């Protein structure tokens, strides 16, 4: 296998003063010494502590929320429900399908229903347990199969199939005809939490000029501002969002998490309010990694060359879209892997369910797709008696070849170089596959 021309030339090498140098991270020393202040470390005079009451059931009509006992807890300064929201009770990254606080229905077991701000975290915690929910259960949609059932009740007005995307290239029938071996398999991936070391947290206060300031664990302050201002009926230039030092994001903090809730409580109480999720809050609420059902059929000739990929990918985005449609579209665009595949049919389906909602998480749909396409490559290799390394080298994209969406590769196509690096490592360490 010839070395790709651009692998040996590698990066233009400078000489540089700083590029390519492992200078210490600018924030490393403060973190190592424990000096860094995360939101959970921040204090302000008169600061209140906030807690959230979650719905606890996946799908129900809200008949009533009784906060009368909660407001009596000593130290409680505010107990808020949907009716207290001054602006639009809708937000979301791609479509506005999320409620700041649940109003008509609950759609997941982790829908926020009420907020409490109190002098102490203990008082806030006690108050949320005293909020009584009167919920009328609805049939929940709990699986991809349920969501595909056209007779199932709709979670949103749009129906449970939010969107479908299609990848088409070449002639699938021709690809099947040219195949000497075809592997057909169904893969299922699971719901995963981001598990950032720092949980979601915001500190909100009105600054002396009347600007609502929210210091928060976010990945994008400007998009937070875009979503916070309409919900709180503020102009966007009267909302300041500051990223605090944060302990990991992994996609989770792309979405609104604690920002609107902390801001709403600060606006209502005119006091600084700090909302720091407990680990339980973080585990149950906000977005996760999409579970996917992936049905793949992949063909190859006896020489190992791929002939076609024929796949359906179903993604469970839970009750709220977040970036789900983009995640699942990206899974479809990457379904053929880093390989030259002449004939392709891939359909993706983004489905609403009453499970916890999923959104951006490190890999953004490509990880799930890779579980399928790489398992398929391995199965083809074993059926053809070709090593897993060689079947990849035979098919990897190279300058001049095109991705599944027809994007022609030029400079910067490094897949062959990475496979060769693994091959060299195996050879130099005398590592051999057991079964090929």
């Amino acid at each position, binding site marked *: 296998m010839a070395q790709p021309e651009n692998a040996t030339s590698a*990066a233009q090498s400078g000489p540089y003063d700083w*590029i390519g140098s492992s200078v210490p991270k600018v924030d490393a020393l403060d973190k190592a010494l424990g000096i860094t202040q995360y939101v959970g470390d921040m204090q302000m005079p008169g600061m209140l502590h906030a807690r959230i009451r979650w719905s606890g059931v996946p*799908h129900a009509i809200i008949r009533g929320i009784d906060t009368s006992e909660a407001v009596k807890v000593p130290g409680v300064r505010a107990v808020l429900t949907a009716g207290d929201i001054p602006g639009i009770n809708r937000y979301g990254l791609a479509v506005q399908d999320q409620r700041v606080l649940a109003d008509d229905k609950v759609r997941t077991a982790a829908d926020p229903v009420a907020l409490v701000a109190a002098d102490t975290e203990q008082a806030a915690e006690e108050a949320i347990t005293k909020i009584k929910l009167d919920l009328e259960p609805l049939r929940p949609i709990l699986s991809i199969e349920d969501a595909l059932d056209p007779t199932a009740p709709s979670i949103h007005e749009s129906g449970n199939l939010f969107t479908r995307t299609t990848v088409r290239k070449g002639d699938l029938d021709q690809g099947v005809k040219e195949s000497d071996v075809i592997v057909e398999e169904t893969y299922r991936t699971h719901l*995963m939490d981001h598990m950032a070391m720092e949980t979601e947290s915001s500190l909100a206060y009105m600054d002396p000029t009347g600007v609502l300031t929210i210091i928060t664990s976010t990945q994008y302050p400007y998009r937070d501002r875009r979503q916070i201002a309409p919900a709180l009926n503020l102009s966007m230039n009267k909302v300041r969002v500051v990223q605090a030092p944060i302990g990991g994001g992994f996609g989770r903090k792309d979405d609104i998490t604690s920002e609107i809730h902390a801001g709403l409580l600060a606006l209502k109480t005119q006091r600084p309010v700090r909302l720091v999720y407990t680990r339980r809050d973080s585990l149950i609420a906000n977005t996760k990694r999409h579970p996917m059902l992936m049905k793949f059929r992949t063909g190859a000739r006896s020489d190992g060359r791929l002939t076609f990929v024929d796949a359906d990918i179903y993604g469970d985005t839970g009750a709220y879209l977040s970036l789900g449609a983009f995640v699942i579209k990206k899974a479809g665009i990457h379904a053929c*892997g880093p390989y030259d595949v002449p004939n392709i049919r891939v359909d993706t389906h983004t489905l609403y369910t009453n499970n916890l909602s999923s959104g951006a998480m490190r890999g953004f749909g490509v990880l799930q797709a890779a579980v399928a396409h790489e398992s398929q490559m391995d199965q083809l290799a074993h059926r053809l008696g070709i090593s897993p390394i060689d079947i990849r080298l035979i098919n990897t994209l190279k300058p001049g070849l095109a991705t599944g969406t027809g994007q022609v590769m030029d400079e*910067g196509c*490094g897949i062959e170089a990475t496979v060769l690096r*693994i091959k060299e490592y195996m050879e130099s360490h005398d590592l051999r*596959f057991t079964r090929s």
Partner: protein
Amino acid sequence: MTKKRGLGVGSMFYGIGYGFNRADIGSAYIEMADDGTTTVYSGACDMGQGIMTVVAQVAAEVVGANIDTIRVVAADTTSTPDAGPTSGSRATFVQGIAVHEAASDLHDQLMQTAAGMFECEKDELEAHNGDVYLKDANSPIASLAEVAARVHLLGGRCASWGWHDNSTADVDPATSQGDAYASYGWASQLAEVEVDTETGHVKVLKIVSATDAGKAINPVAVEGQIQGGAAMGVGYALYEQHILDEGVPRTDSLAFYLVPTSMDVPEIQCEIVEVYDPKGPFGAKGIAEPATVPTTPAILNAIYDAIGIRITDTPATPERVFQAIQEARARGEFKD
């Protein structure tokens, strides 16, 4: 022998940034004070992976300053311009170019003033590590601080900003054909596992991660991403699973939701591959997600290599692997 070893490979490509017509911008302000210290107002969030450090390195390189004189102010709607989110492995790739543009313009302003000070053309000058040199000369003719003080004294502009749009057109709605992303990340990993056929427990013995960084701006930071990415992949492949019971999360504490500990994460061999990407700053591209994607398929393929059984549902928990072994035993397809 109840313990069987196997090797598996996983490869992937990953569209860097947002692709398909989603806004994908970077932007930054930069200014140099009279004493030659520089502040970069960068909208990109650092989540611990090091974009603030990358921003400082790019600014220092392009301005010609010492890195210790660079301060980065990050991600505040009142002081930094909108640089898009830090996600999609895009921050270095997109924001790096925006900072490069801002720093280039500031560098030009400084060299213009220095040219006036020393009666030469600005193209005859360059700056390194806080000093200004005539090109190819060994001794500096001035410090950047002296030049900056001069710019301020003359009322010149000692500030700039840079903006970069990485957005791409959408793919065709019917066929998804088109240039979906400005660029792609590439990675392959090798996993070595040991499967206990009595318990179904899978232990990962080693991971080799070959990840294409284009150009590693900060190799230790790249290694951090590779180590963390592989550890997260081990968690996805074997442990971390949210279990819902009729839609209600039962794994609502770390007692039930298992994450890999240092006992479960093997030695991770970092192989930084550098295939220059002309669209990135100094040839660099994102590696955050490429560093985690191949781990799970590599482990699943290694389990097959060890025991000849393909696990198609994640995660490969001991229960699932043991059950698959039992089923294979019942079919007479498994040799202990």
